[in-house]
């Protein structure tokens, strides 16, 4: 693997918060300059980082906004990649990740941000794909420039597969323009099983108007 030979994969800790926030920001952009959370939360990048930190500080498992659900790739003491994984609905409260995320936003965002976000309901729904209860979910893949294309995501995903050893179905959602991610997931055995329809005018909120669901059954 060349430069990637010394890579170690581990579960994230609170000390990884800054890197996880960066991973969320970059993954949200999906290789473009569009970050949906900036638009939906009507804020600048500094405010967005503050909001995400307060959400991560709540330590609520079962969504992509949980430090414990993140796995980190590290090389020579530096974080080089991240990916979140969890079993949908398997958490202390038995709630779906979308409900947990709504609760986190309700608890951590000012009400005027939530009210403004609700104005984008149609746009949000257009790229929403339901997650399967009990399925392993993967979200927010990120590898720092210089380590991309070196199999880091594959290493992290294999770690996540091992971490949740009893999974039978794995799901990942990706914007249809993100060819490198789609290729990486295909190499791991994921196949396209669903795509959203671009039924509305593209308002420039999301990186791309079409989102895919790719799934993999445990061999």
């Amino acid at each position, binding site marked *: 693997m060349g430069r990637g030979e010394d890579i170690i994969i581990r579960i994230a800790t609170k000390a990884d918060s800054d890197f996880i926030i960066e991973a969320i920001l970059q993954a949200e952009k999906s290789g473009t300059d569009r970050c949906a959370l900036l638009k939906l939360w009507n804020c600048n990048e500094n405010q967005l980082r503050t909001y995400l930190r307060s959400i991560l500080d*709540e330590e*609520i498992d079962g969504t992509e906004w949980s430090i414990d659900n993140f796995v980190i790739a590290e090389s020579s003491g530096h974080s080089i990649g991240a990916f979140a994984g969890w079993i949908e609905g398997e958490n*202390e*409260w*038995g*709630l779906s990740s*979308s*409900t*947990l*995320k*709504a*609760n*986190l*936003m*309700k*608890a951590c965002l000012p*009400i005027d941000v*939530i*009210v403004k*976000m*609700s104005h984008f*309901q149609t746009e*949000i*729904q257009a790229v929403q794909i339901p997650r399967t209860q009990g399925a392993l979910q993967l979200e927010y893949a990120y590898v720092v420039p210089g380590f991309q294309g070196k199999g880091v995501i594959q290493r992290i995903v294999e770690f996540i597969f091992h971490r949740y050893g009893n999974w039978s179905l794995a799901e990942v959602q990706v914007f249809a323009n993100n060819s490198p991610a789609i290729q990486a997931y295909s190499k791991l055995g994921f196949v396209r099983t669903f795509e959203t329809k671009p039924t509305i005018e593209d308002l420039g909120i999301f990186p791309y108007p079409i989102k895919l669901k790719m799934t993999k059954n445990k061999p």
Partner: protein
Amino acid sequence: MTAEEIKRIVADAIFKVLNHRNFEMHDGLTAPDVEGWDSLHHMLILNEIENAFGFKFKLKDLNKMKDMGSLVQIISERLPS
């Protein structure tokens, strides 16, 4: 305040956000049973309920809300006896 009185106030909060009353306020009622009660409107409905009762839910309260019965129970516990 009785459970029925709490439910009436909650029903008004739901109406204020969703603009319809096409639901029955029974303990087993859940968000998917009510047209338009998605995760975005969930946050707005909770905000209206907070305004109506004059307190803010804690995150641990929000995560305990499984259905109307648990919501009423949580509100009841937060109100002065």
